Each structure stands twice: as structure tokens, then as C-alpha cells.
């Protein structure tokens, strides 16, 4: 039997949304969503990504999940948010795994010049988001509205091809797609289309240097 999930759709959603709004307004700022004891999570997706789905999705917002097998994640999101699963070209929210990337970003909608907001938001699962460099981490630097000078974060478990495709899609501002990155410790980081992305893979050279 499906158990009820312990999630307050008024207050948990509000607190999670405020973190999202803060992250979107300050790209590269790492915010932590407070933990909610959500039960029976499907495998293959960060719990944080599901919390974002619960905070933002309802019948009016469509989604797409990239999955290999039996659509467990899609069923879970559809059951708990009532959002419709649609084709990748029409989806408002797209859930992507940071490592198993299959090149779907060029087919996402990125708005029109008159209505640039009619575009996809992608929620990407990565392994870790940190302000400290570690072995095998990808150094990501952001510049643009919301960032005082530049903001640098370190990610593991993200295929750089995703960033290349996003940069390609966001060339023609205001058209583009917005990113929300999540890790498995409830950290989130947002990269709106207004920001300029540069990255260096395997930034092992400056170990442990804290960048604010």
C-alpha cells in the first residue's frame, strides 16, 4: 500500500521555494533545503530533486524525466504532484541525471522572443556541490546578474557536455533554459540563463582553497 508522504504542502513548499528563489536570484550561492522525511523514494534520483518537484509542480506545469526502465520516478512525481508527464519538447520541468546524459538539452523549449518565459527549467542531479575544490571536481564560475563579481563552485558527478549544451542554448538571451542543480545532501544551486558560465574540469590544482 502507498503510504502518505510526510510533506506539508503549505509550509514545507514555502520554505523550499524561498531557498529556490534565493538561489535563482544569487546564482552560485549554495542553499540547503531543510530535510523532509519523504518515504518510498524511487531509486535513481536525488531526494532534493523530488522536493523541488513537490514545491513547484502541479496540474498546470508539465514535466519530463529521463529514465532507462520502468518510469518509477515519473510515476512518483505524477502521483504526488498531479503534474502531467509530457514529451521532452513540451516539458516545463525536466529532470536529468548529471552523469547519464543523453543529449536531450537541444530539444528542450527555450521560449520565443516575445515570451521567453515559455521555456524549460532543468533540474540536474549531481553527486556533490561544494565551495571547496576536491579531486575530480569540476570548477564552475558564474558571472552576471545576481553575482557580485564572480562566483565559483565545485561540482562532482556532472557531465560537462550538459554545460556545453546549456551554453549553446543560452547564446541568444533572453531565449534559454534555467538550471537547478541538486546533490544528495539537500544542497541546491541555480544557474539562470542570464549568467555566463565558464568551467574547468578536474580542478585539482587549488586544493581546499575556499572561495566565497
Amino acid at each position, binding site marked *: 500500500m502507498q503510504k502518505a508522504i510526510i510533506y506539508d504542502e503549505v509550509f514545507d*513548499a514555502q520554505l523550499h521555494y524561498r531557498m529556490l*528563489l534565493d538561489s535563482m536570484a544569487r546564482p552560485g550561492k549554495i542553499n540547503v533545503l531543510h530535510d523532509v522525511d519523504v518515504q518510498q523514494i524511487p531509486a535513481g534520483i536525488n531526494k532534493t530533486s523530488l522536493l523541488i518537484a513537490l*514545491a513547484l509542480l502541479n496540474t498546470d506545469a508539465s514535466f519530463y524525466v529521463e529514465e532507462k526502465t520502468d518510469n518509477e520516478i515519473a510515476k512518483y512525481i505524477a502521483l504526488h504532484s498531479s503534474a502531467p508527464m509530457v514529451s521532452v519538447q513540451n516539458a*516545463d520541468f525536466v529532470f536529468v541525471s548529471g552523469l547519464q546524459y543523453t543529449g536531450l538539452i537541444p530539444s528542450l523549449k527555450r521560449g520565443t522572443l516575445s515570451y521567453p518565459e515559455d521555456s524549460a527549467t532543468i533540474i540536474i542531479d549531481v553527486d556533490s556541490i561544494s565551495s571547496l575544490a576536491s579531486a575530480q571536481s569540476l570548477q564552475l564560475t558564474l558571472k552576471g546578474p545576481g553575482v557580485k563579481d564572480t562566483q565559483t563552485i565545485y561540482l562532482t558527478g556532472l557531465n560537462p557536455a550538459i554545460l556545453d549544451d546549456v551554453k549553446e542554448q543560452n547564446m541568444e538571451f533572453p531565449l534559454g533554459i534555467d538550471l537547478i542543480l541538486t546533490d544528495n545532501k539537500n544542497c541546491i544551486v541555480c544557474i539562470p540563463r542570464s549568467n555566463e558560465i565558464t568551467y574547468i574540469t578536474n580542478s585539482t590544482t587549488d586544493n581546499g582553497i575556499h572561495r566565497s
Partner: protein
Amino acid sequence: MVENNKYTNKYNFAFIDEATKKEIRRKLLKAVAIPGYQVPYSSPEMPISRGWGTGGLHVTLAIIGKDDVFKIIDQGSDASVNACNLREFVHQMTNCKTTYNTAEATLIQTRHRITEEELRDDQIYIYQVPQPEPLRSVERYEFKTRQMHGEADYAKMWVSLYESYVRDGDIMLGAGYPVMVNKRYILAPSPIPKWDVPNLNHSNALHLFGAGREKRLYAIPPYTIVDPLEFEDVKFHTENFSGTECYRTGYKKAFMDELYFDDGTKHFLINDSNFLDKLAEDMEPKQHANKYIDQL
């Protein structure tokens, strides 16, 4: 028996139903991601008429939580009738703490002013906007202004500013002076006086705008370049208060109200009521810094 506290209130927390809140929240995320772009939204029915601050109220109620401290001003004053009514409404619907103190607030809703006191990065500033479209004075059709924004075709706006200068010797725009956000979109900063416009540039706080009657949301993220429209040889300038000082505090570098006393004498008083109170109590509030204030 388990007591059910969840439905003791007649209304949902923050009045608006959760589905509509989610819609406003999603639109606000897009508004922040595209600084200066006006996102259409549902503008649900409120217990006050559209055009009386519903846009700001929608934004406030969509993002407010139990722990927020709410401040609302109307033309700089915490005690104006619009501010008092909306404060009472938000308080009844959320039971949030309300305050007059700018430094204490986490959410500040405003009608037509930015506080003189500098904003912090944990504060969100929410505007009630009557007319969100800066190009409406030069183009009457919505589909056309939308296309002009899409193509960054602002020639008509520049011509209108030029004509104003040729006709009157100055750009005769007062409150709601158009600004360019992130070098891309022209935006109407709600009718804040020119005095406040430079404070939008590289602000610490997130600025959210809601126009309820016109059904538009837009945003200026923190640390974003906001330039008032100006020519190389005809520069933007703020209101001139030279030779005036606040009659209560003697302070000179603030936006002033002009008062006439019963005996016909003219006096000036700081418009921002909380800033005035703090100065009167010698508390030295930290003011916004910009090059226009520094020139005084």
C-alpha cells in the same frame, strides 16, 4: 481524540490557494532568471480591487512564510491608509510579525518609494506597480510593445526622451523614470521618484515587482546593472533639494516632503517615516550610497 489544528482558520495560510501560489512562484523564478522581462501571470481575485496594491500583495503572499517579518510602506510612510490596510490583511492571513523598522524586516512591500535605509541581502523588496509597461506612452498596443522588448527595439523610447529635451530643455519624466536592466530590457521601476532610481543599481536585495491590474510580474536580482536612460550629453539627475533641510532633524540628504503650516510658511520633512524616526532618535541608520547622493 486527536485535535485538528490545521483547519482552524477560515482561509488558507496567506489567503491565496496553493495551486495559484505555485503558479506565481514558478513565474517569479522565470522573472528572476530574465531580469526586467514582464512575465504574465494569473492575478487572482483579492478582497481589494485591482489597482490598489494587489500585484504586490500577490507576490508577498506567494512567498511569505511563518517566520517572515513584514514591513509595508505607502509613499515612504508606514502609517498611510493603503499600507495600514494591507499590513492588517497580511497579518490576519499569516499571523506574521509586522514591523516599522526597515532593518528588522525580511519582506518589505512598498508603494512608490525605496527606503532611505540601505537594504541587506537577506531582504526581499516588493513593489506595487500600477503601470508595468515603460513603452506604453510611445506604443499603445501590447503585442507591439512585446515585440519591441523581444527585439530590444527601443528607438521610439529614445526619440520620446529626445523630444522631451528639445521641447522642455530637460527629460520631463518624474516618478517611474525608465531604466535599462542588465543592458537588455527597459523597465518601469514603478513610480518611485528619481531620487530612488540609482538605489536599484547593484542593490544587495532582490527586487520583485507585481502589477495586479495589468497582470505582470518582473524582477531585478541583486547585483544587477540598472542604468537610468540618459544621453551622452544630457544626463539623468535626481530631484533637486538644494537649500532645503528637514525641519525636525536638520538632515539634508534625503527625499523631502514639502509642508505648508497654518501660518503659510513652507517646511520640508523627510518622506521616509522610519528613517525620520531613527534620525530623530539619533540612531544613525545606514543610508544607500550612490553617486547622486554623494554629489550633494
